[in-house]
């Protein structure tokens, strides 16, 4: 029984789905952030698996760039969370509803 690309794709889809559900169910900004990381990594896995199925290195190059963007995002995102926390002493996104009409 060989492990085909489809297996990895299925696993990536499951991870992505779990991350998606987490974003909508949790209201802690930090946890939502982690869920986003989860989704990004799920996509990374599909890149690598597809690259292997095609026999090309481009998939890994794409992963590299996603990694860098994710790192940058984490840096800025966490800074925002810290800044917000200083103002309100809370990390709940539901309390950040200043734009309510």
């Amino acid at each position, binding site marked *: 029984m060989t492990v085909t690309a489809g297996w990895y794709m299925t696993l990536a889809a499951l991870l992505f789905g779990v991350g*998606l559900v987490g*974003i*909508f169910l949790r*209201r802690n900004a930090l946890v939502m952030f982690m869920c986003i990381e989860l989704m990004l990594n799920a996509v990374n896995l599909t890149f690598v698996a597809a690259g292997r199925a095609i026999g090309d290195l481009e998939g890994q190059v794409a992963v590299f760039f996603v990694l860098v963007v994710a790192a940058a995002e984490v840096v800025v995102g966490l800074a925002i969370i810290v800044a917000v926390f200083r103002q309100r002493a809370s990390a709940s*996104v*539901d309390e*950040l*509803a*200043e*734009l*309510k*009409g």
Partner: protein
Amino acid sequence: MSGELTWLIIALPLGGAVLLHFLGRFLGEPRAGWLASLTVGASFALSAWAAWPFIQGNGHPEQHLLFSWMPEVGASFEIRWDPLSALMALVVTGVGFLIHVFAIGYMHGDPRFHRFFTYLNLFTGSMLTLVLAGNYAMLFLGWELVGLCSYLLISFWFTRPSAAAAGKKAFVVNRIGDFGFMIALMLIFASFGTLSYPTVFEQAAEVLPEGTATLIGLLLLVGAAGKSAQVPLYVWLPDAMEGPTPVSALIHAATMVTAGVYVVARSAAIFELAPTASFVVAAVGAVTALWAATIAVAQNDIKRVLAYSTISQLGYMFMAVGLTAYVAGLFHLMTHAFFKALLFLGAGSVIHAMGDLQDIRRMGGLRSRMPVTFATVGLATLAIAGIPPLAGFWSKDEILGAAFAQGGPAVALYLIGLVTALLTAFYMGRWFVLVFLGEPRWPEGVEPHESPRVMTWPLVVLAALSLVGGFVNTPLFGLGLEHFLEPAFEGVTLAHPPEDLLTFLLLAGLGTAAGLAGVAMGYVTYTRPTWERFEAGLGRIWDAWSRGYGIDDLYGRTLVVPGRRLAEGLAFGVDARLVDGAVEGLGRLVARLGQVVRGVQTGLVRSYGVVFLAGLLLVMALTVWRAG
């Protein structure tokens, strides 16, 4: 050749206006005035230089393209330089220059001194644009600019309600004329496909049927009647006396009001094809001449007499150009510019001396106090009365001669002209006697004095011109102006006064007799202290004259009041209720809609995420469905 620099004639005063607009405040008094005068003087010198070939008799009409504007419709900035525009440019800049200089003295001490000269320069530049234009579009541009400037200048002392109202009136009445003028231009464009002079004049005979030519001619007359204050659109001119006196001189002697005469003369090729329209022009002119002369008899304001006199004299010019005696009309335009400018400036000098008093019944006896003004204005009075050998005699005589020579219905016009000449001499005599002769009737505290030299020497120059200006075109000493103007009226048949000496002498004698009789009547009546009883004795006729036949009231009742009602109805009914209601209703609708829709904006990121996800799902479903 020399014509290539003609654009500078326009550019100099316009440039002066721009310069004064920005720097006038720093130049201050009187330098701003001298700068303005200098630009107009330079324009005059340039015009004279450029007109020299025509004076020598070897010039040709030239057309200079400065730059294209709308070439498809023949509307470009191009200059027509032919004897007609040269004559107009010389009159406008020459007389304009003297008026500018006079104004330096007259406007002394006015807080908006430099602004006044900005407007004067702009006005001169606009008028030059009008007369030097090489097509009807540019002519119209100058035409409208002149209207704007007249508005600015008449209401120059806009803090006086009457001045502001007079400016508005001049503008609105001119718009009525412009309306006809614009339709005329559209008809010209529809017929020729262009507004360019050379095309229009050369092709007129082939392209225009008589009906269209008549229509264009009549519509041009509407425009000209507005600008040149002819019956029935003359009402703005007397009110325009609210402006400073140099403005009156500039508008009524040298520039604006002659625009109508100029346009008719310029369109001679069109009027050539429409004898009916031509005759209507002449008839309107004759009626205006007599109509305004009668009103002028009974006016008591020193400037209003002159204003009605101007209308009357313009009627003469219209009569001449309507009878295709274009040379005679332009000749009178020129001499009239001299002596009427002189009269207005003299009146300005008197007003200046009397401390802004304008009622001639309270003047008198100014002869000894203002000798220069007295002498020069006296000369102008004789000139306008048509006493030989002064300028007015020659030009008026030529017009009357041309009317007489034409025969038929034109003889009626001749008779009207002769009666008008008599009236003119009478009311000018009355005016002059009441102002300068007899016993002083000044109010307390007025100490008249001669005006400063900057105001008197333009008077002297104009007096000299009024004295000799007539000799440029006389049957006895050579028809200089006629030869000068010939290139401009190529292919147009010109009407002439009778050729044989006997008829000429007879007509000249009749004209002179009318003039002398009028002046004598005026002198005899008004040097006697019983003149007030004489005026009262004329009763209701005098009353009608002094009220200008009540035309202003008539217009007010029939046009202004209904117009105002309509405007109020539109403003408070249609606009305030309907238009504003629609606008405000729309605003309220949006606001109410916003109240409903604002609930969507919860501010909760996760709710927005749900919507986002729904959109994503939609796109995915669509993709799967299409991929099938």
